[in-house]
C-alpha cells in the first residue's frame, strides 16, 4: 500500500512535511500516543515527535520505508492495515492514523473498526472520488479518471475501495462513528471553506471517535 507518495502538494517551510500530513498533525493533541498505519518513511511520526512530543509507533508495508523509519530512531514494524491491526490491544493509543491508504485496504470497514478499537480516535484521509475533475473525466471521456491523487491506470492501481465524501459520511452514520472534525482540501491542497466538499474536495481528512 504505497499510497502515501500520492499526496497532492508538498508543504513548504514545515520541515518538508507534506501538506496533507500537516492537516493530520494539526488534529493531534500534544503528548499523546499515536499509531501511524502506513507510515511511509516516518515523516509524520518524526514531525509529531519533535513538534508535539507525541509518542509514536508505525506500521509500514515496504521494507525500504521500515528501514528509513528505523534509521530515524522511530519504532516501526513491517506489516499492513488489513493484517496487523488485530495484534494491538484495545485502547492502546490516543490516535490511530491512516493516511491515503483506506482505499487500498481489502476490508476498509473492518480496518476502521479496528482503528477505533485500538485508538480512542482515528484520523483517516482519502481521495474523494466525487471530486469535480474525477466526475468530469468519467462523464466526458468515459474512461477511469486519473488525477494527481489517483495517478495509476485502472489495471495497476492499488485503490480497490474508492469512495466519496458522501459515501464515507454514510458509513460513519451507519456504523456509529462520530465525526469530530472534517477537512476537505482542493486540488492544490488548500482547505475548502464554503464550497461543497463532495464537489470541490480532492481529498478529505476525518477525525473520528467511537460513540
Amino acid at each position, binding site marked *: 500500500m504505497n499510497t502515501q507518495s500520492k499526496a497532492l502538494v508538498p508543504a513548504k517551510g514545515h520541515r518538508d512535511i507534506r501538506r496533507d500530513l500537516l492537516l493530520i498533525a494539526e488534529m493531534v493533541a500534544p503528548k499523546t*500516543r499515536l499509531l501511524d498505519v502506513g507510515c511511509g518513511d516516518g515523516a509524520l511520526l518524526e514531525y509529531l515527535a519533535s513538534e508535539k512530543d507525541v509518542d509514536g*509507533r508505525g506500521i509500514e508495508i515496504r*521494507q525500504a520505508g*521500515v*528501514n*528509513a*523509519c*528505523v*534509521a*530515524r*530512531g*522511530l*519504532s*516501526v*514494524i*513491517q*506489516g499492513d492495515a488489513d493484517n496487523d491491526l488485530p*495484534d*494491538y*490491544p484495545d485502547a*492502546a493509543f490516543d490516535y490511530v492514523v491512516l493516511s491515503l491508504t483506506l482505499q487500498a485496504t481489502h476490508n476498509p470497514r473492518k480496518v476502521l473498526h479496528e482503528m477505533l478499537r485500538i485508538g480512542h480516535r482515528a484520523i483517516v484521509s482519502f481521495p474523494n472520488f466525487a471530486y469535480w475533475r474525477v466526475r468530469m473525466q468519467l462523464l466526458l471521456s468515459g474512461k477511469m479518471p486519473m488525477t494527481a491523487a489517483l495517478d495509476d491506470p485502472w489495471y495497476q492501481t492499488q485503490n480497490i475501495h474508492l469512495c466519496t465524501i458522501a459515501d464515507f459520511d454514510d458509513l460513519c452514520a451507519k456504523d456509529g462513528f462520530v465525526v469530530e472534525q472534517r477537512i476537505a482540501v482542493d486540488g492544490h491542497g488548500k482547505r475548502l471553506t464554503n464550497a461543497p466538499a463532495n464537489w470541490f474536495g480532492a481529498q478529505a481528512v476525518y477525525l473520528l471517535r467511537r460513540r
Partner: protein
Amino acid sequence: MSAAHPPIHSLDPIGPGHRVTLGETLPLKLDCGLDLGPFQIAYTTYGKLNADRSNAVLVCHALTGDQHVANMNPITGKPGWWVTMVGPGKVIDTDRFFVICSNVLGGCMGSSGPKEIDPSTGKPYGLGFPVITIRDMVNAQAMLIDHLGIQQLFCVIGGSMGGMQVLQWAASYPERVFAAVPIACAAKHSAQNIAFHEVGRQAIYADPEWSKGGYFDLNTIPRAGLAVARMAAHITYLSEAALHRKFGRNLQNRERITYGFETEFQVESYLLHQGSTFVERFDANSYLYITRAMDYFDLASQAGGVLANVFQGSKTRFCGVSFTSDWLFPTSENKDIVRALNAAAANVSFVEINTDKGHDAFLLDEPEMFSTLQGFIDGCAEQRGLNGSRA
C-alpha cells in the same frame, strides 16, 4: 591438556580471548535448584570501552556457536561465525563499540560445561553437570558483565538461541539493556523444534561410544551419533528452495544412479561433510545440555503465561528480524514477540527479510538485514549519545 585427556579430545584450545572464574563468593543459582560456583566463562572482546562505559555490545551465540564471533576460530581455522555483522565498519562496528561475546554456560569452548573438569572429582563433569536453562546462561553472562564493570549494555544482539538470550536479557535485566536485537527466534521453543532436538539427542544416546555420557573416561567420542544429530539439525537451518538451488537432484561424482547405498546425491555428501566436521569441534554432551536449555525456553511461563507481562514497563528499544524462508523460527513466532511488546507499549521495530536461505540467513550476507539494523543501531546510538565518540 593433561595426560588423562589425550589428544582425541581436541577441543581444549580456547584460542584468543579470556577466561574468568565467577561465582566464587556468591554461586550462580540455577533454575534446576542447584548452586553453581565457582565456574568459568570464556569470552572475547573487540574494540575499546569508552570512558562512561556506555558503548558495550553483547553478542549472544547460537546452539553450536562460540565466543569467536569476529576472529579466526582456533579449532576450525575459519573466520569468526558472524564476521558479516561484527567487525571494523560493520553494523556492530568494533571501531565504535566495545563488543563482548562469551561462550554460553554448558558450552564446550572454555566455559563451564560437561566437558570441563568438575573440581569436586577432578574428572570431566559429563552428565554430572547440572541441567541449565537459557536464563542460567544469561545470569552467568550478567555476572561477566558485572566483572567487566559495565552497568548497562548499549545493545544485546543474537540470532536463534542467541535471540532467546537477547529476550531473556531484556526480561531479566530491562534496565541493563538499552537496545535489544532478537533475530530469527521465538519466545518459546515449539513442539516441532523440541521434536527435532529429541531426534538429535536420541542419535547421540544410540551411539555406543557415548557410554551414557562417560566417553571421556574411555577415550572415545560418539562421532556417529553427534554427526547424525548435526545432519538432522542442519536440514532445519536451510530451506527446500536453498537445498534445491545448491544441489537439486545432482549426483555425487557419477554420471548415473548406481542402485546402491553409497553416497549417491550431492546433498547427501554435503550433509555427511557437515556432520563429520562438526564432531571435530563440538562436544556431544554439550550438545545435549544446550538443546535441552532451548527446549525449556518459554519466556511467558516466567510471567504467569502472558508474554506481554514479561516486558511490562520496559524502556528497552527492540528491533526484531525474521526471514521469509525460516521454518525453524518462522515469522509468525517472531511476530508473537512483537505483538507482546506492542501490548506492553514497548518501543519495537520489526522487519521480515525476503530470502530463500532459511534460518541460517541471519549468519549470511543479507544486505536488507544489515541496512535495517544499521539504521536501528545508528538511531539508538544517537539517543544514547554515542555518536560523538564515532571514530
